[in-house]
């Protein structure tokens, strides 16, 4: 298989399989999670200001008091890499073209030099976050195989994409194919690992906020 056949495979059969497993997994897990249900809370709700599902969705995006100073790398690194990832994934013109061809929606992209800069910052932030996870005994202790693995499958698309655009390490065709392949691995892994938070984060926050709000606790 030469690199053009490799590229055509990842754009064709590979993508077909990856998107298939991704959709299957997402549907399955969403229905399963929201189908779990909870026992009805029979106690009278206590009304406290700021204690609600909606409040929690926003509040948990902000560091609790003092935490920014305690673990700045976790918070700042986390912000930078999440926002950077969103910009690179959703505002790079070829990505928009892909989304448009898949679901029909499109929006204006950003200049590729700007995307390039954001990609570098995002890659740096991810490396810093990883080093922090290795260096801090508590974080390291709490980390399981899944944490290292999901970091890797998130990092690889970023790295290969950036290398492809910059024409580094390997010929563009091969690197582009590797980039698409790494995204396909991410798509397959996403529904079945903690990366599924991309779909559940706001739902679970709302749920926690609502349950605690019912009890009169703002979290």
């Amino acid at each position: 298989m030469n690199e053009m056949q490799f590229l055509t495979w990842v754009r064709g059969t590979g993508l077909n399989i990856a998107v298939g497993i991704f959709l299957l997994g997402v549907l399955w897990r969403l229905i399963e999670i929201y189908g779990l249900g909870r026992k009805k809370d029979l106690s009278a709700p206590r009304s406290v200001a700021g204690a609600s599902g909606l409040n929690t969705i926003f509040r948990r995006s902000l560091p609790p008091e003092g935490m920014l100073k305690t673990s700045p790398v976790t918070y700042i690194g986390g912000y930078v890499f999440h926002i950077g990832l969103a910009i690179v994934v959703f505002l790079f013109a070829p990505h928009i073209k892909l989304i448009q061809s898949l679901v029909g929606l499109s929006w204006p992209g950003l200049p590729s030099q700007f995307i390039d800069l954001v990609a570098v910052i995002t890659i740096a932030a991810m490396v810093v976050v990883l080093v922090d996870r290795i260096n801090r005994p508590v974080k390291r202790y709490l980390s399981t195989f899944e944490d290292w693995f999901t970091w890797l499958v998130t990092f690889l698309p970023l790295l290969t994409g950036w290398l492809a655009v910059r024409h580094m390490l390997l010929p563009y065709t091969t690197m582009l194919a590797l980039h698409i392949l790494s995204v396909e691995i991410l798509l397959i892994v996403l529904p079945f690992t903690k990366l599924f938070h991309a779909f559940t984060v706001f739902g679970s926050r709302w749920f926690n906020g609502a349950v605690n709000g019912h009890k009169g606790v703002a979290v």
Partner: protein
Amino acid sequence: MQGPLIDTLARQGVTRRTFFKYCATLASMMALPPSAGRAMAEAMAAAPAATKRPSVIWLPFQECTGCTESITRSHSPTLEGLIFDAISLDYQETLMAAAGHQAEEALHKAMKDNEGKYLLIVDGSVPLGLDGAYSCIAGKSNLETLKEVAKGAAAIVAMGSCAAFGGIPKANPNPTGAVSVSDVIKDKPIINIPGCPPIPVVMTGVLAHFLTFGSLPELDGKGRPKAFYGETIHDRCYRRPFYDQGKFAKTFDDEGARKGWCLFELGCKGPVTYNACATVKWNGGTSWPVESGHGCLGCSEPDFWDAGGFYKALSMPANPLKMASAAVAAGAVAGVAVSFANRAKKSAAKAGHETTTLADLEK
């Protein structure tokens, strides 16, 4: 410097100075030192005077003659065409006056007289299906002919995408079992000059290099001269700034197309195509596909015919996603089934729940 070639050129209205400039351009395009331009001019000018010009045998296999058209098309007497005055083209079916037995005789004479020294040019792919019966010349399959003629060749030039990579005959489902020259011949230096057709100056550049230095130029991993196939179309494209700014033509006649914006979204394969079109251009530097408003087809890359469609952007799926709706349905079914299983488990746990009393704890 004088020589029969200079005289021939002068008769056709090409000055000595133009010829030198052409050689210097060739040398610089091939990233050779400045002195190479002079060496090339000397070698080519002197060549016809020598008792023997380098013999070149050109074998046509499964091809469309487009490569020959590309090289020889003379709107005015081109310098590319005149390079042929520096070689002895002993066998070329399209160009030679001889036919039938005479042509075969010329081929065998050239092979015998120049054993181990002649340059073999092949255009077209080699069909292996039905014992090569899909393409025969003088009762011999292309495979037989290639093996026979390659044996005494100093080097082989695989001219065009068919000879270099199998090209269009090899396109899915490849009914003739077409393969490239390098799939058949393993023991000779092979230079691939892919393109459908290749750029004339690339061909003459390689010929000039062979005439001057007696060797082939530096090649990349796919056997292509690095000087011409070192960079992608996209990297050297004059529309590249629009790609970087995110300005794309959406159709062939919208405002973006009229303003000359990037053709990526219209399926341009420039980013994955290594060739010199963007710098050398076509028809004597007049224009080239992207300049004329059409995206690059990627014709100098292996299997360009099966690379997911000419009008699909590289970032788009090569084929329609067939599994998506089935996957959504299967996912929904799996989710509902698992939900029912979970509920059943919960109900069973609830039903099996035994109330613990204080008395139980004191037991």
